[in-house]
């Protein structure tokens, strides 16, 4: 279970007259249940990535707090991070190491011993369909192969909570479907708490049990896909999202155009 309450974050850059202040997040609340996939849905720049970074303990929030399985991230960041597997938008691999070495390295950093980490790499390789790729150096990997390796790396310590930031970015249809299948299995077979940030409606419709709509750095609505459609009074989920995120005027503009 992940609970985020009243999160806010402000970024400042420059000095004196050139100083610019951006309120990236101004009040995001959500709860992600165990054995469920929660979608954080928002347009580009809505504050999804910043929110997830605060949840993962990478950024210290200016306001609000996050608890992962009851552990306060601000107070015990390392204990929280140990329960968390994160596939962030920065998913760089070490090009001179093999996929297996990349995965085992993170396993070691999560406190697994060499043999346990290697066993996990093998198991994840099978689950994610990495196969023969495991023993190849990651330079020259395709987008999909990179994503699979990065996901295996994030899951190497078998975390109870998984965070994915735009996981299907740059993936083709086959790879996207395969990823969806993996996430469903992680939810159904292992009861993981999964949070997924995305701006793709289709993904949310097909995958998420619970949706949190984020716009302008705030949570503007949440509920199941069906509930959100009903609340917006739209049969089409995309139209429902636009109405919820930007209000009636924007939704009307789209209809008229």
């Amino acid at each position, binding site marked *: 279970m992940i609970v985020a309450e009243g999160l806010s974050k402000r*970024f400042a850059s420059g000095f004196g007259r050139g100083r610019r202040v951006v309120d990236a997040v101004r009040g995001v609340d959500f709860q992600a249940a165990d054995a469920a996939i929660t979608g954080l849905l928002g347009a580009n720049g809505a504050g999804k990535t910043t929110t997830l*970074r605060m949840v*993962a*303990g*990478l*950024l210290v929030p200016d306001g609000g707090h996050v608890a992962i399985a009851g552990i306060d991230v601000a107070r015990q*960041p*390392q*204990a929280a*991070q*140990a329960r*968390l597997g*994160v596939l*962030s938008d*920065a*998913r*760089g*691999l*070490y*090009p*001179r*190491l093999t996929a297996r*070495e990349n995965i085992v*390295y*993170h396993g*070691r*950093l*999560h*406190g697994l011993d060499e043999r346990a980490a290697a066993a996990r790499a093998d198991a994840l390789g099978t689950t994610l369909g990495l196969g023969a790729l495991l023993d190849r150096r990651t330079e020259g990997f395709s987008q999909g192969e990179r994503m699979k390796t*990065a996901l295996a*790396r*994030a899951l190497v310590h078998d975390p109870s909570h998984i965070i994915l930031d735009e996981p299907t970015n740059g993936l083709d249809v086959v790879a996207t479907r395969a990823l969806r299948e993996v996430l469903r299995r992680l939810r159904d077979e292992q009861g993981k708490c999964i949070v997924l940030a995305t701006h793709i409606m289709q993904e949310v419709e097909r995958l998420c049990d619970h949706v949190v709509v984020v716009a302008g750095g705030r949570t503007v609505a949440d509920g199941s896909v069906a509930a959100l459609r009903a609340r917006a009074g739209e049969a089409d989920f995309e139209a429902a999202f636009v109405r919820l995120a930007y209000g009636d005027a924007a939704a009307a503009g789209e209809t008229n155009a």
Partner: protein
Amino acid sequence: MIRAAWAVGRKEWVDALRDRRTLAVVLLSAVALGPLLLFVLSLLVADLEARAEERTLLAVGMADAPTLHNYLARQAWTVQPAPPDHEAALLRRSLGQPVLVVPPGFERDLADGLAPTLRLLSASSNPRAERAAGAVLRLLQGFGQEQATLRLALRGVPVAVLQAVQVDEQDLADPQVRAAQFTRMLPFFVLMAVLYGAMHAALDTTAGERERGSLEPLLMTPVPRGAIVLGKWGAVAGVGMAVALLACLSFLPGQWLLRSETLAAMFQFGAREAALFLALLLPLAAMLSALMMAVAIRCRSFKEAQANNTLVVLGASLLPMVTVLNPAGEQPWQLWLPALAQATLMQRVLEGQALGAADLLLPLAVAAAGTAACLAYVARQLRASALT
């Protein structure tokens, strides 16, 4: 903490070793450095020696001065006619010797006691000719003195009257110190080898990590930042130290390539010298690694980090210049500055001087403090995680 630092260090070390092309260039230059430098230096010294032994004088109009020619022959010098464009050649520096111009009627004027004027052409912009001009000048003064002595002797004045004082020149510099004049550049090149050796690894583990997008996943593991920094620094310093070791050891077989016998006799680099060099270089490699990481950690790309680290390279290459340029000799404050201290002390090792424990401990302490400060800064930067 230690276990995590070890895991990070081992991975970075493996990563650095797999970067074959960079590694080959770095190691090859470190290994080739000693022999190559010594070879070039010895060629230079051998050339100087050959020139010192070569006693030829370029002259114009020597046919008009048989007495002078006779004196030169008795001093075992040979006279050769100067090339027609000698003035331009001296200015171009293609001619490495001064040219003596004998005026017409020299012999007659000399016999008449008219003190004829000899012109010795050289150019102060031509160091080789300038150096050789000194020897020729002394030779001509010898001729003048002989003529004067002969004239006085003809008038019955004893020669000793003219020599109120006798000068006996003695060179106090022992052979090792003399050789050290030529080997003054060696410490500098060794320093540069260590710096460039560690640079790629230092940048790759910091700015490179950020550019690849692998820093964020790394920071989301529950490993303390201090352990990550320690592990990375261990690997980078390891590369720097390996380069230092190879560069020092390469001087041992490098001595076989010495072409100048004098330099070979004077340049003594044995196990003791190698050990002292290492004792000086290892702490410096540790500190430079930490410093370059500290400069690179804020940079968003490898390229930016390279540009910023030019400052470190500039500092580390300018500081040792003090020993080369400073004519007043070694100053106590030199041992407080990293790079300069090591260059100064390596120079002392080459000159065969003793190094006290304090001489080694002061730069070591400075390096340790510098390393700690830089690593603390890197860890703070990671904790602040300016990942926006």
